[in-house]
C-alpha cells in the first residue's frame, strides 16, 4: 500500500531528522567559531587571558571554573545521592517513606534552575558570607564554593535515580545467598550489590556530572562572574556556560562573539562525550530497555 510506504518513510525521515539536527548543531557551532579558531587556534584552550580590550580571548579560566564547580558539586552530592539510592533501592523499597523520598527527589529535579539560583542568592550567599567573615576571607558570599553547593543540590536527583534503579535491579537470589552465608546488610551491599551495580552507578554519576557542567542560570547567579583563574574556592569565577550567558548579547566585536561560540563548542564537545559514554553504559546494561 502506498500510504503505508509513505508512512514508513515518514518514520525514517523523523528519525533521520533528529540525527541530522544534532549533527547540524555541531557543524553550526564549528562554522560560527571559525574566526576565533583561525585567530587563536588550539592555544585558545590553554590561554589564561580573556581580554576584550586587546581582543585576546582564551578559555582556560572558564574551563577551570567549570571543572572546579562540577567536580566539587559531584563530591558534595555523592554521599547524599548514594544514600538515597541505597535507601530506596535496598533498605526501603516500598512503603510511604520510600515513595515520599522518590517524590521529593522528583520535585528537586523539577525546580527550574533560575529558582535554585534565586534561592541560593538570598539564602545560601548570606550564610556563606558569614562563614567567610568568621574565617577572615573576603566575604564575597558568591563564588565557586557557593555555586558548587547549589549545583550539588540540583544534581542529587540525576545521580540518585539511576543508582536507585540499578541497585533495585540486583537479583534477590544473589543477595539472599549473601545473607544465608551470615553476612550483614553492609557486607551484602559491599560484596554483592555494589560490584553488581557499580557501572550503572558510575553512569548515573557521569550524567549528573554532565548536568553540572552545562548548568547555566543557577551558576551565573551565584558564581560572581569574574573572568580570572581563581586561586581559592571562595573566590568569584566564571564557567563556560555562565560567561556565555553574561556576554553573548553585548559582545562588541565579531571576534568576541565568535570566541563565545567557541566556548560553546568546547562545552558541546565535553558534554557530548560525557553523555555519550554515560548513555552507552546504560544502553549496554539495558536498564532503559527493560520492558
Amino acid at each position, binding site marked *: 500500500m502506498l500510504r503505508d510506504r509513505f508512512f514508513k518513510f515518514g518514520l525514517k525521515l523523523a528519525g533521520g531528522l533528529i540525527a541530522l539536527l544534532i549533527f547540524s548543531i555541531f557543524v553550526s557551532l564549528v562554522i560560527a567559531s571559525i574566526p576565533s579558531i583561525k585567530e587563536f587556534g588550539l592555544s585558545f584552550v590553554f590561554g589564561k587571558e580573556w581580554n576584550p580590550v586587546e581582543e585576546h580571548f582564551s578559555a582556560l579560566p572558564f574551563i577551570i571554573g567549570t571543572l572546579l564547580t562540577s567536580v566539587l558539586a559531584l563530591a558534595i552530592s555523592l554521599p547524599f545521592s548514594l544514600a538515597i539510592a541505597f535507601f530506596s533501592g535496598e533498605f526501603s523499597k516500598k512503603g510511604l517513606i520510600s515513595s515520599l523520598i522518590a517524590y521529593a527527589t522528583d520535585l528537586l529535579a523539577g525546580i527550574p534552575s533560575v529558582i535554585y539560583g534565586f534561592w541560593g542568592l538570598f539564602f545560601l550567599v548570606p550564610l556563606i558570607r558569614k562563614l567567610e567573615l568568621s574565617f577572615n576571607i573576603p566575604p564575597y558570599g558568591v563564588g565557586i564554593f557557593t555555586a558548587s553547593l547549589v549545583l550539588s543540590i540540583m544534581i542529587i536527583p540525576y545521580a540518585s535515580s539511576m543508582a536507585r534503579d540499578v541497585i533495585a535491579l540486583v537479583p534477590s537470589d544473589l543477595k539472599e545467598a549473601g545473607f544465608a552465608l551470615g553476612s550483614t546488610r553492609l557486607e551484602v551491599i559491599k560484596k554483592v550489590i555494589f560490584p553488581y551495580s557499580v557501572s550503572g552507578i558510575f553512569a548515573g554519576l557521569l550524567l549528573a556530572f554532565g548536568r553540572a557542567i552545562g548548568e547555566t542560570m543557577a551558576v551565573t547567579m551565584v558564581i560572581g562572574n569574574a573572568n580570572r583563574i581563581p586561586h581559592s574556592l571562595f573566590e568569584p569565577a566564571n564557567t563556560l556556560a555562565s560567561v556565555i550567558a553574561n556576554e553573548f*548579547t553585548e559582545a562588541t566585536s565579531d571576534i568576541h562573539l565568535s570566541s563565545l561560540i567557541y566556548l560553546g563548542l568546547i562545552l558541546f564537545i565535553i558534554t557530548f562525550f560525557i553523555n555519550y559514554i554515560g548513555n552507552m553504559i546504560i544502553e549496554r546494561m539495558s536498564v532503559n530497555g527493560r520492558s
Partner: protein
Amino acid sequence: MGEVKLRILKDRIFTFIIYLLTFLSVIPLFAILFSLVKKGLGVINLNFFITLPKPPPDAGGILNALVGTFLLVLIASIVSIPIGIVAGLFLVETRNRFANMLRVLINVLQGLPSIVIGIIAYLWVVKPMGGFSALSGGIALGIMMLPMVVKSTEETIKLIPYTLREASYALGADYFTTIFKVVLPAGISGILNGILLGIARIAGETAPLLFTAFGNPYLNFNPAKPVDSLPLLIFNYAMSPYERWQNAAWGASFVLIAFVLLINIGVKLGGRRWRVKL
C-alpha cells in the same frame, strides 16, 4: 563473639548514616519551598496576574511574562510534538543499528547544556530574522522538549500489547490506520504525560531565552517579536537592586513552581497506568 558484635555495630552505623543522609538531602527542597511560600505568597493577588510591569521603584504585574511563557510553550509544542511522536514510533518499529544509535543520540541531546541550544537558536533563527523573537525562543525550547516527547512515545507504545495490532490487522486495517486509530489512541495518555512533563521542564528554562526571546516589558502576541517569560522575569528582577522587583520575583517564582508542581502531581495521579520515565 566480639567480631560478630563489631560487624553488627558497623552495619547499624551504616544503616543510621544512610537514613540520616537521605533525610538531610530532602531538607533543601523544603527550604526552597518554604522560602517561596513565605516570600512569594504575600505578593500575589489578582492584579499581579493581570497587569504589566512598571518602571522602578514600582514593580507591577507579570501579565507580559505569563503571555510570553504561554506563547513560547505553544511554539515549542508545535515544533517538537509532531516530529517527536513520529520519531518515537520509528524507534519502536525499527530494530537496527541506526535506531540504537539514534536512541543514544536523543539522550545526548537531552543532556546538552541549554545555553548551547540558545546559541544554536541564535545562529539559526535570530541572525537570519535580524532580531530577537518569540519564535527563536520557542524553537530553542522545542529542541529541548523534543527528546522528552520521543522517549515518552517510545516507552508508552512499547508497552501496548502487540495483540492489539494483530486484531487491527485481522480486521483488514493497514499499517497507517493501525498506528493512528489503534496504537496511538491506546497510548495517548502516556504520551500526553510525557508532553506535560516536557512542558513543565521547558516552562522553567531561562538560559536559552537570554538571547532568543530576550524579554519584553510590554504585552506581545507576535511570534516575530521579543517576548518575556516567567523565568526571564525572575532572573532580571532577582538580580535587580529594587526591593519591589525582588518581591515580584518571589511572587513569580511561586507562580512558576506552582505550575510545575501541579503538572507533576497531575501526571503522577492521572498517569499511574503508564510509568513514563524521562
